């Protein structure tokens, strides 16, 4: 069955059952699966807090630093865990794909959805950390639902591309690990985009303008900035960045959908 929009709508019950069964499986393995999902970003938060603030004595302008990095760790974790799982999902479900007629796009989609619900628990944890740190929770929070929507759109698009490539390229999985590691440091996870703008300006007028623009081509730079503006700074994100984020996530989803449709009927022969 072709993975197009109308087939996915017709099989919306499958999307729901698959997402639920992902979550049930996780709950079956451990009662508080989403807590385990959170452990990783929380440990990373503690490590970077200890290294950057405790050892190097930096990060003063980003105090409280744990909140600052957690704003980045959580969406990043949703992205990387969905991406790695997507790269192997079609091969892992080979038997299923070859014996049942259903839009196979449901497989990568539900991976992203089920991890997204873990991420939602993560944002509650973030909110708790914000409150514990005694930071104000204000009107800037109204941005959060829109950021969540942009994030799921973006991650879905990227995962659709990667799920096809993963079926065709046998060593993609290992390669992705390196790629996301580089992506982590290229994204404003440990630092903010204000530093990127500052340092670029030091390089002269040309780089001062173009380097930040180049940097913001990374949609996660914009997304993380949005979460920080909402949870950390308590302000509204620059409207230009909002437009950029909408454009980036729409392109990602469209590209993912198109790529999947292109490979849809070819991929099964490569499994």
């Amino acid at each position, binding site marked *: 069955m072709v993975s197009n929009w109308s087939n996915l709508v017709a099989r919306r*019950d499958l999307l*729901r*059952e698959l997402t639920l*069964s992902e979550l049930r499986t996780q709950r079956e393995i451990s009662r508080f699966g989403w807590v385990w999902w959170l452990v990783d970003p929380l440990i990373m938060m503690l490590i970077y807090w200890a290294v950057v603030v405790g050892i190097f004595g930096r990060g003063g302008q980003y105090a409280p630093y744990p909140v600052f990095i957690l704003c980045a760790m959580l969406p990043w974790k949703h992205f990387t865990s969905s991406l790695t799982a997507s790269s192997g999902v079609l091969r892992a479900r080979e*038997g299923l794909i*070859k014996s*049942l007629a259903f839009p196979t796009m449901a497989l990568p989609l539900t991976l992203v959805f089920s991890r997204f619900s873990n991420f939602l628990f993560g944002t509650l944890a973030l909110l708790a950390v914000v409150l514990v740190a005694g930071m104000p929770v204000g009107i800037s929070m109204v941005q959060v639902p829109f950021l969540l929507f942009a994030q799921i759109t973006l991650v879905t698009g990227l995962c659709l591309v990667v799920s096809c490539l993963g079926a*065709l390229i*046998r060593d993609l999985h290992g390669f992705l690990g390196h790629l996301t590691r580089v992506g982590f440091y290229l994204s404003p996870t440990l630092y903010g985009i204000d530093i990127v703008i500052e340092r670029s300006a030091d390089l002269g007028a040309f780089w001062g303008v173009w380097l930040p623009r180049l940097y913001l081509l990374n949609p996660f730079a914009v997304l993380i900035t949005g979460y920080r503006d909402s949870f950390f700074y308590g302000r509204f994100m620059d409207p230009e960045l909002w437009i950029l984020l909408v454009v980036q996530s729409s392109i990602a989803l469209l590209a993912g959908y198109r790529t999947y449709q292109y490979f849809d*009927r070819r991929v099964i022969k490569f499994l």
Partner: protein
Amino acid sequence: MSDPKQNEPVEGPESREPVVEMDGVGIYFHLQSRRRISIKSLLLGGSFGQERKLLWALRDVSFKAYEGEILGVIGPNGAGKSTLCLALSEILLPDEGSVSVRGRVSTLLSLGAGFNRDLSGRDNILLNGAYLGMRREQIQSRVAEIVEFSELGDFIDQPVRFYSSGMRARLAFSIASCLEPEILILDEVLSVGDRAFQEKSRRRLEELMARSRLIVIVSHSSEFLRSICTHALWLERGRVRGYGSAKEILDAYEAAPPTGEAG
């Protein structure tokens, strides 16, 4: 799949529109596709760009099947029988020609492919129903019946991981036989569970077949096909060797000298 409106005859009082129609269908596989592309070969050249050999699993397959028929598909291993089932179920799309199917297709190709081993039998009923295209309400209203038919008892709330293969097959059959198919595709005969269950499942399958508008059954056994089919399609090395009434084709199939396996 072709546009169903294309070549549609004018509806007469007794229109004989084929329920399933294949027109010049060809499906190929890359023989080298097992050696998938790797990042290394993309970077270093390697085997990338090498000419790949094509294996046509089906070629020039054309036939029409009408309402009320039971079509048996026969042929040696590697003749393309399973590929034909995959094409009729829209799992594989043809590389050449067109397949047109008028009605809801249900396939019983391999039982239990959709099981998630970590989930309970009950959860798997919902999941498998969804894979088979049933609506949630539809499958939920039949959960009790499925549990009873499968004879799993309290095991239904245990993870499928702990089931014996017989229990898994029984559950899978119970779910799949709740389908309301218009076109039913069966790959090989389903024989599930112990003798009592086999008897029960055979009866269930007969009911299912009685409700279907068209049935396509793949089998190695011409004897079995002879007992139930109205028509037969004989495939050999991906091509149609004969198509017609079951008796005529199966007689010819049995009379033919055995051929070497192509696959």
